[in-house]
């Protein structure tokens, strides 16, 4: 058995890193167990000639395709949206695009405002200082003054919008619709030892420049200096409890495949909206027969993804193409509920540049825009560096039937039951997707596009894993309380996207980390009676 620690954090990604950094103030002995290893930026795809190939090989977004030693399989056959993640120090932030919008104030009041789902037990004002602290820690490039948000400070200037942003901005102005440079977790200037973005265009597969804020190069560097221990290659299988219904630590498999027990006074789950319910369900025992912290029956339920729709068109003049960050501009025009649209809630647009040559060829053939044979070369040259568009990020409402369970057959390399996803796109979300495709097409036509292609929902876009251990005041209907502590286990906390009550219509990492910092702050403020 290992030496006991005060705080055991499970997962070294976006939220685990943030909570580790914040709790380091307390001088408690803090240990994080991470199933993957440290990323090596010198080996990221953009460092080699085979960069586009490796984006679908060892840096593929699907853990089932990547299938590295750090990955666990996920049965997502029963979902039109396939899971994307990364297992290693930094977690999903290693592969995310760095699009960093906050949720909007209305997102926390959806029952009150729109009669759907539930209100959150916390509000935007509660999270605002943690959003701001997180922006500074991650190094967010933005332009102050976005009329779609309450006032917020800018840490550094926004990333360049390029010819694509100019084209789209003009079209949006003609339509009279909102647009703004995106808040991006990518440095636009030297910042805290990180070099500025050089427009590699590789944000989604590891940033060799170190400009994109993955937590291996942000929070973890600070946390390690503050004596937090991060143990890699350690896959947690289950949480152990005692007769007092308290967590006593976690069992994990080390690099040699040996199962080891790690005792702890406090356990913090930071494994994302699939990994966390997987471990909780796998921790079923005589004391907790339906899984740990699951007296409500809500663990694993209410899985929300943010279904994406894609709209892309061809333009006569050359644009930025594969150059530049994947995130640079958003629109919140259709974010809030408008009864005339026939659905509740809304979505944001994240504008996109073009592809590299391989993806131009592959998608062009798939879309019927590039033929086989003699016509291939001319058609390719018409598309390459001439495409742009957007994706819509649609708010997914919670539904109990969309869930994570344990697969009865599939197991990972350590014999731990794999997660099984059951998900379907809800009627409200489908209407929202359809609306976003129609408006997106309108934008591209206004900008002068032809050969417009659409995909809805995007299949390989299950990035945002939310809602499977929801936050709430009522133990009968939620898994954790309003400050992240499990209702059933008073020394168990959850800080990842599992606790989202609703999804909002924006990329969630900024909010996930703000919640992690908020929960850490609550733990620090309540240390004297934390388990009461």
């Amino acid at each position: 058995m290992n030496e006991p620690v005060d705080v055991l954090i499970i997962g070294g990604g976006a939220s685990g890193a943030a909570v580790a950094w914040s709790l380091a103030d307390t001088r408690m002995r803090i240990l994080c167990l991470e199933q993957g290893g440290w990323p090596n930026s010198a080996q990221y795809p953009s460092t080699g000639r085979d960069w586009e190939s490796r984006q679908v090989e060892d840096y593929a977004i699907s853990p089932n395709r990547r299938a590295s030693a750090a990955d666990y399989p996920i049965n997502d056959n029963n979902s039109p949206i396939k899971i994307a993640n990364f297992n290693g120090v930094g977690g999903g932030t290693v592969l995310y695009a760095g699009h960093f919008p906050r949720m909007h104030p209305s997102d926390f009041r959806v029952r009150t405002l729109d009669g759907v789902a539930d209100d959150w037990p916390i509000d935007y004002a509660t999270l605002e200082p943690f959003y701001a602290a997180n922006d500074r820690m991650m190094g967010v490039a933005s332009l102050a003054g976005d009329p779609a948000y309450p006032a917020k400070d800018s840490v550094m200037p926004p990333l360049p919008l390029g010819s694509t942003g100019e084209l789209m901005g003009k079209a949006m102005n003609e339509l009279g619709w909102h647009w703004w440079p995106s808040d991006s977790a990518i440095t636009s200037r030297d910042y805290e030892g990180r070099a500025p973005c050089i427009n590699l265009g590789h944000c989604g597969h590891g940033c060799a420049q170190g400009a994109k804020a993955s937590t291996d190069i942000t929070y973890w560097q600070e946390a390690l200096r503050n004596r937090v221990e991060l143990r890699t290659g350690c896959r947690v299988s289950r949480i152990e409890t005692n007769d007092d219904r308290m967590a006593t630590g976690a069992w994990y498999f080390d690099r040699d495949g040996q199962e080891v027990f790690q005792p702890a006074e406090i356990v913090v789950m930071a494994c994302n909206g699939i990994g966390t319910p997987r471990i909780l369900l796998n921790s079923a025992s005589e004391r907790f027969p339906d899984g740990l912290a699951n007296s409500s029956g809500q663990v694993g339920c209410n899985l929300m993804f943010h279904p994406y729709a894609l709209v892309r068109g061809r333009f006569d003049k050359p644009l930025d193409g594969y150059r530049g960050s994947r995130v640079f501009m958003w629109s919140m025009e259709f974010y809030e509920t408008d009864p005339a649209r026939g659905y509740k809630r809304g979505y944001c647009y994240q504008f996109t540049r073009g592809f590299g040559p391989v993806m131009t060829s592959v998608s062009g053939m798939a879309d019927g825009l590039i033929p086989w044979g003699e016509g291939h070369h001319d058609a390719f040259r018409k598309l390459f560096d001439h495409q742009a568009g957007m994706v819509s990020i649609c708010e997914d409402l919670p539904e109990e039937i969309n869930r994570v369970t344990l697969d009865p057959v599939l197991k990972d390399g350590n014999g731990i039951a794999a997660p099984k996803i059951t998900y379907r796109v809800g009627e409200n979300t489908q209407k929202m997707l359809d609306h976003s495709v129609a408006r997106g097409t309108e934008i591209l036509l206004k900008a002068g596009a032809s050969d417009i292609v659409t995909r809805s929902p995007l299949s390989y876009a299950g990035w945002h894993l939310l809602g499977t251990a929801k936050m709430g005041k009522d133990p009968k209907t939620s898994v954790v309380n309003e400050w992240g502590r499990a209702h059933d286990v008073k020394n168990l906390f959850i800080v990842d996207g599992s606790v989202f009550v609703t999804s909002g219509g924006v990329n969630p990492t900024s909010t996930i980390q703000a919640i992690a910092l908020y929960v850490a702050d609550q733990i620090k403020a309540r240390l004297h009676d934390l388990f009461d």
Partner: protein
Amino acid sequence: MTFSIETPMTEPQPISPSDQLTLAEVDCLRCIAGHMIPASARHGVPGADDPGIIADMVRSLDRDRAELQRVLRMIDEFAGGRLSALAPAEQRDLLARHRKDGAATLAVIEAVVSRAYYRDDRVLKSIGMEPRPPFPAGYPVEQIDLTLLDPVRQRGSIVREA
């Protein structure tokens, strides 16, 4: 047919059955690649059936090997034994029919061929790309005149009261 020959990214290497595919499968893949992306004298580029590109393709199948083998065998069966044994016009017609009936099954071949073809030096230069990794040089992208946002600013706040 002639086109400008420059040094390929990788010198062609002999292909053997131990290189992930059987000789028959390589034969079928080469045949399909040539029909998918033929050489172009006008653009000064080789076809995807160029020996150097095929060698690179076969060496780097990685996670697609099993699916690719399944599809190649299916196409050979569809051709009555060996696609490459048919006359070029028959090959083209057969592949066109197959694409029409089951385009999705050919997606893996399109991906494998594109990944090798569009990293060949000759091809990259012809489409205006420097044959180099993105890092460490990066690329220029210009900031625009942000007064383009003035109409958005003038519209005022759109934050919903909550």
